[in-house]
């Protein structure tokens, strides 16, 4: 689509008259190519340099690095053991709780803003949710450890008292730690932190649903919820999953807030009221005093976290593709 016009030609649109033609076009292509490659290069560089730093430990521990639950840099006998399983578990559990709490709330806010809210409320509501996103994470961490954790201890005790005895489910609601710093509190704080991100993207996605689809559902006699389920969700499913993945990325990588409220204990337990630790948190806690192999092991944790994020994103893509086929297929 080459539109080469010289400056003396007919007065075309102002768009093409002053653009300089082919030279600018070439520069533009070069610039976009360069920036795209730069992003890929940075990603590759991060992956390469961290794996290289962590290589001694990854090579020595092999697969045991991700399957062993013991993390002992200074054992009383024998060599240091670096097993990341407890931290992988901690990251997974706190992120899962965050999504379980945060996604329904975020999508709920998004639906409210696009479907139910009166026009005058939309602006202020959007601003308020965005304000929540701009609070620094360390503030959330401080608030969590000083206010939320102590306040939730009686709540956890109640849950333990009521549900603790049920076989199976009861192991989830075990005895709570005295300080209230545990997986559940970390999950709650993370939920508050990821909700604004998921909300703002969901809202955008939900608002792109064509009014025609909505009207068609209503014309068939659907209630509002049926309309949402039949016309809004299939259209915006990919976007909603994308928003959730973005939120999950933040939850998995969140460092300071989690380090303050998760309890600092290396443990794998189904009890969500017990303390634990996450990969990002242990890195920030122990990096300062680490030397040699210990530092390499912590960098190895970073590599594992990176890999986990990539795997989760890829899995999300597969889910979206399958669901799209099903939903769009059913719609036509």
């Amino acid at each position: 689509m080459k539109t080469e016009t010289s400056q003396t030609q007919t007065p075309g649109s102002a768009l093409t008259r002053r653009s300089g033609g082919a030279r600018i076009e070439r520069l533009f292509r070069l610039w976009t190519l360069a920036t795209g490659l730069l992003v890929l290069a940075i990603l590759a560089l991060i992956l390469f340099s961290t794996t290289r730093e962590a290589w001694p430990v990854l090579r020595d521990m092999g697969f045991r690095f991700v399957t062993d639950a013991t993390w002992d840099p200074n054992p009383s006998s024998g060599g240091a053991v670096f097993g990341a399983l407890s931290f992988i578990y901690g990251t997974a559990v706190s992120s899962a709780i965050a999504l379980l709490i945060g996604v329904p709330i975020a999508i709920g806010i998004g639906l409210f803003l696009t479907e139910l809210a009166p026009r005058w409320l939309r602006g202020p509501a959007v601003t308020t949710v965005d304000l929540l996103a701009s609070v620094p994470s360390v503030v959330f961490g401080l608030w969590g450890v000083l206010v939320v954790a102590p306040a939730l201890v009686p709540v956890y005790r109640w849950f333990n008292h009521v549900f603790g005895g049920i076989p199976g489910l009861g192991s989830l609601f075990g005895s709570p730690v005295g300080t209230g710093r545990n997986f559940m509190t970390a999950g709650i704080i993370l939920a508050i932190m990821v909700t604004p991100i998921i909300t703002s993207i969901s809202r955008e996605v939900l608002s792109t649903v064509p009014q025609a689809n909505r009207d068609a559902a209503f014309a068939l006699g659907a209630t509002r919820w049926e309309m949402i389920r039949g016309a809004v969700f299939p259209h915006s499913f990919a976007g909603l999953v994308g928003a959730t993945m973005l939120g999950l990325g933040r939850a998995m990588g969140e460092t300071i807030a989690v380090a303050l409220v998760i309890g600092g204990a290396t443990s794998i337990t189904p009890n969500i009221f017990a303390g634990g630790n996450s990969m990002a948190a242990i890195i920030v806690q122990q990096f300062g005093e680490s030397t040699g192999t210990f530092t390499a092991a912590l960098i190895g944790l970073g590599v594992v976290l990176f890999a986990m994020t990539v795997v989760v994103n890829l899995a999300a893509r597969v889910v979206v593709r399958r669901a799209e086929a099903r939903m769009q297929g059913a719609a036509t």
Partner: protein
Amino acid sequence: MNRNLLSRLVIVGAALAGLVLAGCGGNNGGSSSSATSGGSGLASLSGDLKASGASFPDAYYQEVISQFKSTAPNVTVTYNSVGSGTGKKEFGQGLDDFAGSDSLVKPDDGPAPGSFLYVPTVAAPITVSYNLSGVDKLQLSPDTLAKIFSTSIKKWNDQAIAADNPGVSLPDKNITVAHRSDGSGTTNNFTKYLVAAAPTAWKLGSGDTVAWPASTQGGDKNTGVAQIVEQADGAIGYVDLSDASELKLTFASIKNKDGQFVAPTLEGAAAAIEGAEVKDDLTYNPLNAAGAAVYPITSPTYILIKNKYDDPKKAELVKGFVRYLLTDGQAVAKDVNFAALPSSLQQKALAQLDKIAT
């Protein structure tokens, strides 16, 4: 459009107004101490000294630095409390003029062997602080202490604790063990004590980080552990005397090598330093020292100085500051809950300064 913009401005304005109102309540007060002691040569010194290291003696070093400022107003000394490990690393890389460390330098810590000197500065008790409503006096023997911290003992009314505390009624509560989540010289000294005093009961080794059992809680720095103990009923943790006193925690008395239960006081710490054997490089180990009045969990702390400074002016500054710290500076130690060195050790420490090659 206008209404939308206006409503957003109103929200932001309301948020800011809320912040201002909340902030107006607090006011900050600063205090500057004036010291009248003066070394004659110090006032003529000028320059910068950078240092970093252990958080354990931070309160003491900051106090000495502010006193030193009035004696030598042209010298700026900065001490960053980042932890012994980072301090040693930075000192080894040449980023610091001196470093603070609670633990000795190991081969891969940073500073090259033979390139530095140890200068003992102060010592302080590591308290075993606890929070148990209704119990304001607690005695613990090393074996019981080891079992509590390795979670073999899970409840406060356990046999072993009751045996150490005849006549005290202990509640049936879970013990919440608090420890450091970051690598720490305080953990190092506390676990070294347990290895020395309770070798059969303590199996987790010693070091800046150990593999604490799963049901414990980790806090960041001494203040983090102190906070956990303060907040949770039934918590117990090891905190340096300075931070524990600040939060007014209750301390347990520990049974020393001679069989006496001693509380973490400065006198107990001083007795521990006296009872410790001092090696040639001036490192000494007051943990589990012998003596009736000894508090057995006393942690030494050192300053690492280079034995050769490239810049003679820098060497003068370091000598001036460290000499001040070891002479006039020792007087402020007890104000911030640290035990000053006994005079024999103080003399040896001053002699270290003369070993700096110029």
